[in-house]
């Protein structure tokens, strides 16, 4: 039995924090997730008992801290079934991980006229780094379009992949919730001789992830969306590719040696981790992974599929033609993210009215402006769920929307 009340009780903010003496209805986990007590405790206890530099000093305390930091890497490798923890590179967030790929691998391997294929439902994090590269050296960007129900239109995939060097796509849309056939897309990329890069920011927190089964080349994601702290993100990559790449940023920790004439790089992953990293955050991340593993990623997905079904049915049933929810209706290919437009109300006004009821949602373009263009809207309101949400949260959202109608007299 998936016990939401029990899970929620492990999140201090969700149980203890009130505004106007009422609990919060947190429906913005697609943006960032709340943190369980275990993660908070792991981080404070690490700082109270074991905090020290990593990889630099030889005293015992520093060794302890290094081990704690590396345990974060091991936990991530286990969670996504990476063949080796050394293939997990810590970054600041998923955005930095995508920049690392575009700037380090891209600069070394892409030349003018080379083709990079993206999809129309990408987050800016998987668009702008490629556009920067396009400005720098004139690569061509092609876009996989969408079907009317917000799935990838793969009818002309072969054509789009013709001569492509890269296919980079999201494993779950942060706007539509769409979960594309990631394994199939990786295979198609490889068949065309392209690298397969997966933005798994929205996928990893909610699903069983197996980077080997996908046979992806790079996978990027963020700790803060999976119950871990902000300030740390991950790039997993195949060792032979990481090994052959030049570094991204330079500094301490990433070198083998430095002379007046130049430098040589440390082995992967240190090669991509210049400077003092997010040490305490890696410790918190390890605790987050253990927390998720205890509940079970398959169980989390199961729970969210049921909740997604409930949300789609409730909102459509209560509001009919007054609400437009974007993305597929089939919960097998969709996660718990609901972007919608409601009557003629602007998303900012919708979220303002919901905030009055302590319902926290996001309004705007969700860092996916090109997708907004495809959908023919300027902005949407987005509610997104996680393991601590249940049907009462969806009901609170629907009740709040009822209130919006009254205020604007529409």
């Amino acid at each position, binding site marked *: 039995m998936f016990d939401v009340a029990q899970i929620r009780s492990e999140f201090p903010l969700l149980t203890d924090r009130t*505004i*106007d003496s009422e609990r919060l209805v947190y429906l913005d986990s697609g943006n960032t997730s709340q943190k369980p007590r275990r993660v908070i405790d792991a981080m404070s206890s690490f700082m109270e008992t074991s905090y020290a530099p990593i990889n630099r000093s030889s005293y015992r305390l520093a060794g302890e801290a290094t081990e704690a930091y590396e345990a974060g890497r091991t936990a991530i490798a286990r969670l996504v079934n990476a063949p080796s923890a050394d293939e997990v590179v810590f970054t600041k967030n998923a955005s930095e991980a995508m920049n690392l790929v575009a700037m380090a691998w891209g600069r070394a391997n892409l030349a003018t006229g080379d083709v990079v294929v993206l999809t129309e439902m990408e987050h800016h994090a998987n668009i702008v780094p490629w556009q920067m590269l396009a400005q720098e050296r004139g690569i061509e960007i092609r876009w996989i379009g969408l079907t009317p129900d917000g799935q990838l239109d793969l009818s002309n995939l072969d054509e789009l992949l013709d001569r492509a060097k890269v296919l980079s796509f999201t494993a779950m849309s942060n706007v539509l919730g769409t979960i594309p056939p990631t394994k199939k897309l990786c295979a198609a990329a490889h068949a065309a001789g392209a690298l397969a890069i997966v933005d798994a920011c929205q996928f990893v927190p909610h699903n069983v992830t197996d980077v080997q089964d996908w046979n992806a080349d790079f996978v990027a994601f963020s700790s803060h969306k999976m119950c871990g702290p902000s300030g740390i993100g991950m790039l997993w990559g195949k060792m032979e590719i990481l090994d052959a790449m030049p570094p991204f940023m330079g500094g301490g920790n990433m070198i083998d040696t430095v002379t007046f004439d130049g430098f040589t790089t440390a082995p992967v992953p240190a090669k991509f981790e210049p400077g003092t990293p997010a040490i305490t955050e890696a410790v918190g991340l390890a605790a987050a992974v253990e927390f998720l593993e205890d509940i079970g990623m398959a169980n989390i997905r199961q729970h969210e599929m049921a909740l997604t079904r409930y949300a789609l049915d409730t909102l459509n049933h209560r509001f009919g033609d007054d609400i437009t929810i974007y993305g597929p209706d089939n919960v097998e290919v969709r996660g718990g993210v609901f972007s919608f437009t409601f009557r003629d109300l*602007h*998303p*900012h*006004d919708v979220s*303002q*009215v919901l905030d*009055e009821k302590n319902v926290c949602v996001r*309004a*705007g*373009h969700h860092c996916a*402006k090109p997708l*907004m263009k495809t959908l023919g809207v*300027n*902005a949407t309101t987005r509610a997104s769920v996680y393991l601590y949400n249940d049907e009462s949260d969806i009901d609170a959202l629907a009740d709040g929307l009822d209130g919006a109608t009254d*205020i*604007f*007299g529409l």
Partner: protein
Amino acid sequence: MPGLEDLYREIILDHYRTPRNRGELETPPAVKIDGHNPLCGDEITVYLTVDGTGDDAVVTDIKIGGQGCSISQSSASMMTKAVMGKPVSEINAVMRRFKTMMGIDGIEMADADSEVDLGELEALQGVVKFPVRIKCAVLSWNTLSNALDAALNPVE
């Protein structure tokens, strides 16, 4: 906690439901300037014609295009009423008063500004209590400011 009635005053909702001076003007003679709020994707277009030069120039027509929330749309609508037919010197004074009311730092008020009557624009005062919405309220004014610059300093 400020209530929604502080934000969504009736006059604001009226301008939102029935925006004044919406549309386009032919360019040239009009200038057309776009503004957007990168945070939420609100977009506004100001079309403007002026007659004369410098501070004495008079706004002869203004139209608003684009999309946005009730606050940005009503603010733009009220703004068009406040500036239509007015000299630039007076518009700048209203703009300084308005931005000061919105709690924006670093606006240097002129001596006579305290006399300026904001009229309907006063209704937007409640926005200050909702800091994330201040950007919505000033978007049209910032865009107008750029439009006035463009109209008064045409590139040859």
